């Protein structure tokens, strides 16, 4: 089956895309070649053509917390947000520390979204995420896990971190570490700084993140094994990663759009919608992160999609759980940065597709012949307002709720087949 997408815009240039079966055949300047005989034609009418994105850090809540989100609703939000693959963290109930849980997740994905987006489970690093005993990583890898992480429960035991890195390396499982000193600022509600001081809220110093990142980096250098630093929020952490990369340490890192757009002042009205882990930090941290994603010191963007039910976020700040919903919003938020001139369209491809694929060894679409035909058409001008009506995730926990965003995914194909 052949498909021709005509008159799309790719990196500012008008293009036609030819798909043969489930692979990219050619991408040519628009109107250059006539579509082959018997080819289905789709006129993109100038919409932006992008490769399906990869989100290396989501929480889909199934099994165990389906009232917040389930695999079906999470993948639907992913598809609508432009994502062709999502890597889901293991803090479900039960925890994804045995093959049966991995298989359950994959079965659910196959049932609800047989043609994509792809679900790529991340193995729990330790049994029950308790930080005590290494999980059976070979079994988990065999069942379909693509990386390993203790996300949600920072690893305190450095010896164990070393052994997980070593054991995972043999299996091709890279450790994604949630870096947070478990003692520094224990019980925190937000970033420790001017705003926490005025509001009378317990704060978390950014040094807690940088300390653990530094620990992981020292181990990565000593062992010569790669490590991936999850959701970097602080300028100090960026400095440590830059230093490590200059030394040639195999370290990669991610951050989320919200750390590039918001800061601690989002909590000034005690809004639980702005409570996230790691916390929103200062304007200085935000600027450092913008620079870091621009220059590639922080390699990729992720959503850290962390859905919660409305009633859980409705209360006082200390009771409310941390986390934002992200899959529906990520591309619009990224485009806000493109509009601002912080990023380019090509940066968006690198941060959301090429680099995550490189780091985690995943297939990706660079629009070269033979690449998987995973792509979508995006209208960067379309304004929309995140609400129950416009979002596909079960959860509405985002500080952007009710604000006008720009940029909407209009159509999405995976393996050459139209998802919507």
């Amino acid at each position, binding site marked *: 089956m052949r498909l021709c997408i005509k008159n799309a815009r790719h990196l500012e240039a008008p293009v036609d895309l030819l798909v043969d079966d489930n692979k990219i055949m050619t991408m040519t300047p628009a109107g250059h070649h006539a579509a082959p005989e018997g080819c289905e034609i789709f006129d993109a009418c100038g919409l932006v053509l992008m490769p399906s994105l990869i989100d290396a850090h989501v929480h889909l809540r199934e099994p165990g917390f389906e009232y917040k989100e389930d695999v079906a609703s999470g993948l639907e939000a992913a598809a609508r947000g432009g994502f062709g693959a999502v890597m889901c963290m293991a803090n479900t109930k039960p925890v994804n520390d045995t093959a049966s849980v991995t298989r359950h997740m994959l079965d659910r994905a196959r049932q609800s979204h047989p043609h994509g987006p792809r679900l790529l489970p991340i193995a729990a690093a330790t049994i029950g995420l308790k930080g005590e005993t290494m999980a059976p990583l070979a079994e988990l890898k065999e069942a379909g896990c693509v990386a390993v992480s203790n996300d949600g429960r920072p690893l305190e035991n450095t010896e164990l971190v070393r052994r997980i890195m070593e054991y995972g390396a043999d299996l091709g499982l890279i450790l994604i570490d949630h870096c947070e000193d478990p003692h520094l600022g224990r019980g925190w509600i937000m970033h420790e*700084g001017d705003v926490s001081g005025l509001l009378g809220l317990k704060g978390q110093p950014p040094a807690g993140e940088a300390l653990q990142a530094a620990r992981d980096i020292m181990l990565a250098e000593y062992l010569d094994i790669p490590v991936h630093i999850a959701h970097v929020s602080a300028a100090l952490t960026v400095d440590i990663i830059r230093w490590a990369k200059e030394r040639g340490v195999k370290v990669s890192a991610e951050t989320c759009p919200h750390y590039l757009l918001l800061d601690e002042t989002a909590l000034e009205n005690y809004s639980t919608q702005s409570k996230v882990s790691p916390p929103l930090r200062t304007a200085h941290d935000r600027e450092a992160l913008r620079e870091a994603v621009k220059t590639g010191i922080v390699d990729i963007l992720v959503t850290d999609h962390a859905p919660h039910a409305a009633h859980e976020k409705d209360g006082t700040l200390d009771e409310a759980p941390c986390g934002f919903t992200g899959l529906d919003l990520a591309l619009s938020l990224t485009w806000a940065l493109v509009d601002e001139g912080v990023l380019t369209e090509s940066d968006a491809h690198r941060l959301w597709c090429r680099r995550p694929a490189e780091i985690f060894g995943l297939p990706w679409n660079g629009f070269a012949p033979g690449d998987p035909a995973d792509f979508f058409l995006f209208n960067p001008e379309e304004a929309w307002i995140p609400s129950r009506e416009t979002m596909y995730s079960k959860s509405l926990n985002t500080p952007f709720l009710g604000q006008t965003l720009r940029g909407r995914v209009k159509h999405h194909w995976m393996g050459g087949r139209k998802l919507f």
Partner: protein
Amino acid sequence: MNTENRYHWPHKDLLDVTQLSRPDTLHLLDLAASFQEINTRPVKKVPTLKGKTVVLFFVEDSTRTKTSFDVAGKRLSADTFALGKSGSSLNKGESLKDTALTLQAMSPDVIVIRHSSSGAARYIADLLPCGVVNGGDGWHAHPTQALLDCFSLRQAWDNTFEDRTLLILGDIAHSRVARSNIHLLTSLGVRVRICAPRTLLPAGVDHWPVEVYTNLEKAVRDVDAAMCLRLQLERQQAGLLPDLAEYSRRFCLGLGHMELARPGAKVLHPGPMNRGLEISDDMADASASLVLNQVAAGVATRMAVLYLLATRNDGGRA
């Protein structure tokens, strides 16, 4: 109360002193002064708030503040009833939201809330149409305490705040009393100093409008008043202090310290006092101590607050 004809109180709630303009504060203090006179009469009751209902919703325990609001409401003839964590369904796992909505169903005119979470009073105020008074929320704000302290100081200082210096001594980081007092008194022109070990100072204190000291002898020099804060004993368990004896050696306010202050300088304490820990026994009972004046001022100030909120919708006056 002759300003009343010209002045209109604009606030539905009293959540934090930061919402008060200077005219708001001065009006409130004047009103409190007129109510204090009632408290000296043989029959200490006026019908001003007859038919009004005041709910004292104290999720975090506080005998002092609760009693003070209770007395204030009753002196104005309001019906007051108190509900604590055990009396409400919060114990049974009910959310704060549902408990608040239940209270609202009883149609109170004012709810006074005390809660251990910073921001809790604001949360309730946004939720409910009745007036909400923050009776203390977490480490954040305690506006009526600041107002009563201000009232006591105004009397002690003959109505002048300019050129006065106040020292606040003790656990600033975890103190809603300190936050509210610093804001209110600096807004009236008082110079404020704070003194504590660094572990009990809040993040960002360098950007506060205060002078920061870690040495009590230096901090107390030439002040017009010193306010001791109650030290929570769990600060030692939290690793913020080595031991309480060492704390008291460095930061317990005694009579000797006040000799370094300006003549006639006063001492305040929001109570209950840990005698011998943050304030010496003889200091607590000295003539410079305003502690009992503060208690009396508390009733008068809270009468003013309840009056302003409960009569807000009565065409400006009761």
